[in-house]
């Protein structure tokens, strides 16, 4: 199926099937809405396009997932951040899980019957992710890869952990980058404690996750011992292509909303916010095209990341200027969204880390 047919089909189907969210905008409500949207799109087949048949997909190019997410974001059917988590979780499973495990589990994620989370960051390992210290130790000593492992440590910024049935978890099994090993962990395993973090924008989507002698079967290892760092870097292209395209579509809807609501004729500020969005849309479009042509995405996606974070914050700064009091005086979605936009230069690799990567890898400025 090509993009045009797919988009036409999705739009026609969405016109007949109203998936608009209800009045509950709490995180519980958002997660329930997300599950509802995925279930409906799975049953109708749309969310299965762009994924391989081995994991319950209907095949076709990956760009179809970007198109579907764009239509979902444009209609505000699901919050784009949590909608897009599939884009990093499912490819990880397809590339690194044993095929029967991927075949069993990925359809549960796509269909909305389960939420999953990603246990990467730790209190002592933020920007310096490779220093992570959550330990995994084989129960029966060396050499028995298929035996049980025992995990001890703490993760943080784990989105939706309190709703999740599974976790893609990075652990330390040996020193250095080559000593990081990933597991697919059931969140109901004894020894796991989840504590949601209160955030400044009032949506507690992040959590701390504690692992106290958590036993994980060896067949839940993703890849081989030591593959964890490769796994973590391999998902960046997905995060920086399809997820970004969804988020950009969402930000356009917010600019439309600002245009509808503002009474202040500041054309320079509106034009400038629009130009920043248009720029990242064009850049992301080129990235999608490269992905479709089979190119390997790499450090150049840090440019996409800087453009997106900058455009997002500029848009909400402009909204705050042109809707005076909307953030401070009233309880509209602008308040929460404005506050959340402050995190755009922090999550997914800070703005500083992106510039370090650009300087080192794209400009060849040597070590800092």
């Amino acid at each position, binding site marked *: 199926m090509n*993009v045009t047919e797919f988009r036409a089909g999705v739009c026609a189907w969405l016109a007949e099937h109203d998936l608009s969210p209800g009045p509950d905008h709490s995180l519980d409500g958002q997660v329930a809405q997300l599950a509802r949207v995925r279930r409906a799109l799975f049953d109708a087949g749309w969310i299965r396009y762009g994924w391989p048949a081995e994991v319950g997909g209907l095949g076709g190019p990956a*760009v179809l997932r*970007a*198109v579907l997410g*764009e239509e979902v974001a444009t209609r505000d059917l699901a919050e784009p951040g949590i909608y897009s988590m599939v884009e990093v979780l499912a490819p990880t499973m397809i590339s690194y899980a044993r095929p029967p495990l991927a075949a069993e589990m990925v359809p549960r994620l796509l269909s909305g019957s389960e939420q999953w989370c990603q246990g990467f960051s730790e209190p002592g390992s933020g920007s310096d992710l490779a220093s992570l210290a959550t330990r995994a130790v084989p129960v029966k000593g060396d050499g028995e890869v298929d035996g049980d492992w025992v995990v001890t440590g703490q993760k943080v910024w784990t989105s939706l952990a309190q709703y999740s049935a599974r976790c893609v978890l990075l652990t330390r099994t040996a020193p250095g980058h080559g000593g990081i090993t990933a597991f697919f962990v059931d969140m109901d395993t004894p020894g796991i404690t989840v504590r949601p973090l209160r955030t400044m924008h009032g949506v507690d989507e992040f959590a701390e996750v504690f692992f106290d002698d958590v036993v994980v079967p060896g067949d839940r290892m993703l890849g081989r011992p030591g593959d964890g760092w490769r796994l973590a870097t391999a998902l960046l292209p997905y995060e920086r292509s399809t997820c970004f*395209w969804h988020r950009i579509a969402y930000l*356009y809807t917010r*600019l*439309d909303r600002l*245009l*509808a609501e503002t009474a202040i*004729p*500041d*054309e*320079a*500020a*509106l*034009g*400038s916010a*629009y*130009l920043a*969005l*248009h*720029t*990242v*849309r*064009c*850049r992301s*479009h*080129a990235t*999608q095209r490269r992905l479709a042509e089979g190119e390997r995405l790499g450090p*150049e996606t840090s*440019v996409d990341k*800087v*453009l997106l974070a900058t455009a997002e914050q500029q848009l909400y700064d402009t909204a705050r200027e042109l809707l005076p009091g909307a953030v401070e005086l009233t309880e509209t979605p602008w308040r929460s969204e404005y506050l959340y936009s402050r995190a755009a230069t922090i999550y997914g690799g800070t703005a*500083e880390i*992106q*510039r*370090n990567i*650009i*300087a*080192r890898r*794209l*400009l060849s*400025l*040597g*070590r*800092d």
Partner: protein
Amino acid sequence: MDPADSELLAETLRKTMTAASGRVLDMALVELGWPDLLAEFPDVAIPTAFRLLGETGAHAPLLNDVLLSAAGRRLGGTLPLPYAGGSWVVWDRCDQAGTTLDADLPLRSVPAPLGGEPVPLAAGRRALGWWLTGLGRAMLSLARSHALNRIQFGRPLASFQAVRHRLAETLVALDGAEATLLAASASEGDNSLGCLLAKAAAGHAALTAARHCQQVLGGIGFTAEHGLHRHVRRALVLDGLLGSSGELTREAGVLLRKERSAPRLVHL
């Protein structure tokens, strides 16, 4: 035109522009078949030629041809060009010094024309956008070499994060602007808004490059003995031609307010 031909064209143009500028370059390009290229492969010829004018620091009055060609008129002449603030200029096809901040360009102010044919702005803006990002790349290249070679406190400037981040910021602006230019070239039909946005992004990126690169180059970049000032002057002058980035951004804002919606210009 296949990729190998585009590559060859770029190499040929680069050599020609490195060897000549102004009137001589103008004539050399006619010899190379510029008018035919413009007519047959505008989506390759214009980005390549204008980007290389920026990168090499050469100049030629090719903007006239782009506009004349878009208007269906005979190439080789000149026409009054709108400039920022409601001014008008003419880009002469001679080597006489101009009257603008960049005196190397044979560009002079003229009175506003009475009537006359409308200037096909979209094609001209797209071409100038490529020139501006090319200039930005030239400035970035100068600043990058300086940062790698200049030693202070016993280490290269490039090892200081404050310097690295300025150069990274420059690359982000230039890559973003080029994405808007590519999107404007590829779009069919009425792409006047795409070209307007691309010129605004490119002007903004070139001025960002000028600011960061001048800072990284420090004292030497302020002298007329270093090449940077030529690029800075040219970026300022070209930014104003056919509408400055500030004016074009405002114009986009006016359109947004009128339509009460933000046009999505590129699609998967």
